[in-house]
């Protein structure tokens, strides 16, 4: 295989694109998905601030986001992407659909985590004169931290898998690389190498996430 010298730089570049897309999308997903998850939890019937109508509307939007196949979402949000990034092509443009696809996913995970918190802890905080936002800030989020970290880890792994499809809109990254160099040029060794690389990234992420979650869990 004399062409490895040509392939390696491209592989290197593709890895960088994947990490860039996933990294930025993950950051945005956490920034937007966690508040959405909190909102889903507190507006639920019997929650801190029950708003049944808002809760149902949010639930519907979130479910729609999760039901939509990512490849469809990619196409559907193209106008939004153009509005935000200025183009629908490239890694930066791919961040928009990636983030939009992952937010509902993480929001549901966050909701599940927050629901696990014993209602008595919330009641105890309220008995101390806590405001609702104090309860979220000092009870719900800190107490569910280990499980939130686990949820974020799962979301980031899902983002890596989504990002492989971003190649379809010229987003680049490892998925795109595997298709162009491996699949389309009948180079099974390159496909395999890419898969191994993805596996290593996912394993590293999962390992780091698990370690972090364990360190936070004091139970």
């Amino acid at each position, binding site marked *: 295989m004399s062409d490895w010298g040509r392939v390696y730089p491209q592989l290197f570049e593709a890895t960088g694109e994947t990490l860039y897309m996933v990294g930025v999308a993950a950051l945005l997903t956490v920034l937007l998905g966690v508040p959405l998850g909190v909102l889903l939890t507190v507006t639920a019937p019997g929650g801190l601030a029950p708003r049944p109508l808002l809760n149902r509307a949010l639930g519907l939007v979130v479910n729609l986001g999760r039901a939509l196949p990512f490849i469809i979402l990619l196409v559907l949000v193209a106008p939004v992407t153009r509005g935000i990034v200025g183009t629908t092509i490239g890694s930066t443009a791919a961040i928009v659909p990636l983030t939009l696809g992952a937010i509902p996913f993480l929001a549901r995970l966050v909701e599940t985590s927050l629901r696990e918190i014993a209602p008595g802890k919330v009641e105890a*905080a309220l008995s101390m004169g*806590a405001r609702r936002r104090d309860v979220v800030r*000092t009870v719900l989020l800190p*107490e569910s931290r280990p499980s939130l970290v686990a949820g974020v880890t799962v979301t980031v792994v899902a983002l890596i898998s989504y990002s492989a499809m971003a190649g379809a809109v010229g987003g680049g990254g490892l998925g795109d690389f595997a298709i162009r160099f491996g699949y389309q040029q009948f180079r099974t060794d390159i496909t395999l190498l890419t898969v191994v690389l993805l596996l290593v990234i996912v394993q590293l992420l999962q390992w780091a996430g698990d370690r972090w979650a364990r360190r936070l869990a*004091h*139970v």
Partner: protein
Amino acid sequence: MIELTDVRKVFPARRRAGEVVAVDGVSLRVQAGEFAGVVGPSGSGKSTLVRLVNLLERPTSGSVTVDGQVLTDLPDDRVREARRSIGMVFQHFELLDSRTAAGNVEHPLELAGVGRAERRRRATELLDLVGLGERAEARPAQLSGGQKQRVAIARALAVRPKVLLCDEATSALDQASTAGVLELLRRVRSELGLTVLLITHEMAVVKAVCDSAVLLERGRVVDGGRLSEVLTRGHSPLADALLPAPVADAGAGHGGALLRVTVTDRTPETVVLQTLVGELGLAVEVAGGSVETVAGGRYGRLLLRVTGDLDRLDAGLRGLRDGGVVVERVPAHGGVAAGSGATR
């Protein structure tokens, strides 16, 4: 210090179940510095009642006054402020696992906007008070049940409340830890001049710590008062629950008369025996009963069988009653039962 006036709490009907009247017109008064108990079987509305005091549950009707403030008239944000002067301790402790013991004690101080250095200082002081100064950096998971409840008590006292509410505070603890926690509650009550309202289903807890108690059944107060006064009554639901009345038919039919005597610090059984044995020359046998320490005093209910010359017995009993002794002749159960059996 705490005053509930005709408080009702009705939970609206849910899908299957109809509406539930958890608290049904309760009026309750707890004096400043008093250690008051609310006792009753599970489902009697105790837990709802205690939550009405700090408005964790808003009453459907009636008014709640704590420390001169009519809480039921206040808007939500003022209620939140008022809650800071009402500490609360729960059955399952409800400590935050994400914080150390000291961190948990600091939590209410943080909510009240107290600075970091002052919070630390206060947490150390409070953990010392509850005997856990050494465990400040321990996580709740590393503490025993009794220790967790001590931390929870320290947390409840952090903002120097005037009132402490205890919701089944010892029900999840073993006997030794229960005794320790109750002892602590009594101690902080006197040291800090607190008013305590304690909810429990255990009579032993009421006997160990309370000055007064009310008996709650199906959301209503059926009996209550200062224990020293309740226990000197001959009969009442609360008195019977605190000191079970001795069974009257124990050894019935042996002749003589059965007397039910209530023993207190001021009217000990020695006075009764002096009259019965010394003055009336009767033979006295204890047919049943018990004497216990309740609210720091000695109380008991005894069933005495007296035999001998009973002619002067009624006069003697009158004399005892004039002296403040609660004593009554028990109708001869065995005889009545036999008589009715014969007529059938």
